[in-house]
């Protein structure tokens, strides 16, 4: 598997560009709007695989849905720029978005149990999605068999007439992937696709996603809280905390030389990663994830950061470009002496 180590020269235009995405919550009874995601930027090259990492409440799932403009009241999202496959969707209408979803960008949800409709057969749901393009029913059936084979489901003809609740979790997730890929999208957003599955099945699904991505050239943006899968799966990673991106870069960069204190703490906290001297207690990150409804000024991680400076609780750090990657941390920028 080819994994570029550095950003390299960009000769091809990125397939997905997100700039300045922000999502906020407007309470029903009036009051202050609460930002849930702020200053989210993403640039994905064709065929590239990204991982967006964060804990629960970091805003990663909301960011994923916002990229596809799938947020409902009381949430709303806007962006300075969203481009998919060269198509500008920044101020696109709902109809335009409906057109784009499925065909250029698709989504896999977290829980396969609730994501497939229990009242229609697998075949019915597949054919329905395939026939968004003018395709005959017969051809659609053939293609759905093909898709099921691609996602590694044995005996696809039998499964077409089955109902989702008759199948295992792993198979349902595979079908969900098949549905997402049915109209050959250029980008696939996967929201924690393995969290609800057994450990053994998790590995299989991840492998499937990698294989499919390589074969079809589909870019994948995977939302996850599990750093462990990064080396096997992703080219690049973005770390989120408190609704903001704190560090982005290639996987080897971020994993080997993490710059942001949060990333460092995350990596330290993995079981089995500490040196034998520290093996007594797991170095967990003290404190609790931030309450997005009561955000303080300054860096969201400051209350839990061991190396926090006085500025950290006053001013929100901007993302700076260092070594070809971005970090949002006063400590890092001040020690580097530059803001890029």
């Amino acid at each position, binding site marked *: 598997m080819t994994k570029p180590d550095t950003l390299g020269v960009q000769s091809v235009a990125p397939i997905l560009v997100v700039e300045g995405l922000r999502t906020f919550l407007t309470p029903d009874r009036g009051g202050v709007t609460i930002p849930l995601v702020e200053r989210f930027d993403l640039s994905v090259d064709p065929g590239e695989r990204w991982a967006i990492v964060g804990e629960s409440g970091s805003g990663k799932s909301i960011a994923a849905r916002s990229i596809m403009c799938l947020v409902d009241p009381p949430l709303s999202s806007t962006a300075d720029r969203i481009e998919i496959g060269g198509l500008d969707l920044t101020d696109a209408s709902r109809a335009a978005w409906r057109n784009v979803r499925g065909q250029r960008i698709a989504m896999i*949800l977290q829980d396969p149990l609730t*994501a497939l*409709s229990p*009242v229609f057969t697998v075949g019915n749901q597949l054919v329905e*999605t395939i026939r968004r393009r003018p395709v005959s029913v017969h051809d659609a059936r053939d293609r759905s068999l093909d898709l099921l084979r691609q996602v590694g489901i044995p005996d696809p003809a039998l499964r077409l007439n089955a109902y989702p609740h008759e199948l295992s979790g792993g198979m349902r997730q595979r079908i969900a992937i098949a549905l997402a890929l049915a*109209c050959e999208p250029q980008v696939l957003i996967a929201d924690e696709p393995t969290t609800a599955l057994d450990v053994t099945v998790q590995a299989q699904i991840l492998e499937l996603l990698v294989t499919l991505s390589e074969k079809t050239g589909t870019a994948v943006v995977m939302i996850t809280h599990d750093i462990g899968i990064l080396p096997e799966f992703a080219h690049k990673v973005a770390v989120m905390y408190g609704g903001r991106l704190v560090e982005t870069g290639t996987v080897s960069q971020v994993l080997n030389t993490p710059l942001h204190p949060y990333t460092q703490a995350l990596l330290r906290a993995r079981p089995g990663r500490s040196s034998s001297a520290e093996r007594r207690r797991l170095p967990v990150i003290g404190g609790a994830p931030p309450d997005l409804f009561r955000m303080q000024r300054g860096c969201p991680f400051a209350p839990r950061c061991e190396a926090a400076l006085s500025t950290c609780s006053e001013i929100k750090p901007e993302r700076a470009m260092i070594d070809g990657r971005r970090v949002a941390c006063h400590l890092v920028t001040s020690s580097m002496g530059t803001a890029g």
Partner: protein
Amino acid sequence: MIALTVRQSAAPIVRRIGAMLLTLWFVLTLTFVLTFAIPTDPARAVAGPKATQEQLETIRLSLRLDEPMAVQYVRYLASAAVLDLGYSHSQRRPVSDILLERLPYTALLAVSAIMFQLIVGGALGLWAAVRSGGLFDKVVFVGALVVVALPQFWVGLVLLFVFGFKLGWFPLGGASLPEGLVLPALTLGLAGVAWTSRIVRATASEALASNIVLGLRGRGIAPRRIVLKHVVRLAAGPILSVLALDLGLLLGGAVLVEAVFGWPGMGNTAFQALQQKDLPLIMGSVIVGSIFVLVINALLDTARVYLDPRTR
């Protein structure tokens, strides 16, 4: 593949029919017991108040009222099995003939009312869910609340007054088709529209907020298809369940509606039979009514299992 499914569905059907027969047996037994609880002398009812003692005795013998209860019971069950429901003295015809004649009218009324409530109630509930929290939603909510509290026979009277009397659009009763069917069906189905819209609104809202619809939206499926194909199917199961439970009440309402509009169905027949104290006809109506409910129940259940595989 087909053989497999046939065999799989055979066992539940057999069990289903068995349960129905059991319930029917209970119903027959209940009605039999009720006839004995009634203080009226059946012989006197047949003969009239001026009959002599000898005449009463003769009638009693012909009705076999002297036999022990157990024998009468068996005889009762046996004749019910061949659909011999006795002889109506108020109409001088076999009960089964009368009911067979009247059943289609009630069935037509009931089915029309059900169609009306499913279509209109369903549409209202769907739209209220799609525009959740909006004005339409609130209006439908309050409207449903008000409508379900209106007494059916009063609604019938009012509709008759407004559309029959004042506007003259519809006849003031009788059985002309299709004009004579409209107002009674509307009256019977109106309460149904109210609760159907509420249940549909509830299930549809839940469905719209669910991961299923999120996935559909994520694939860019058109809103019309999402609502009319997926959300409707998801709401079908609960609606059919409640409809089956409501059948008994619906038939009860049919009696009143038939009385108000003079619709010649089983309800009217039973009403007249009560006034004439025609016991066999009354009991026959009860039994046929129960069978009707059981059959429709079974149909609804089959439809529900087909539409909503979760219940298998």
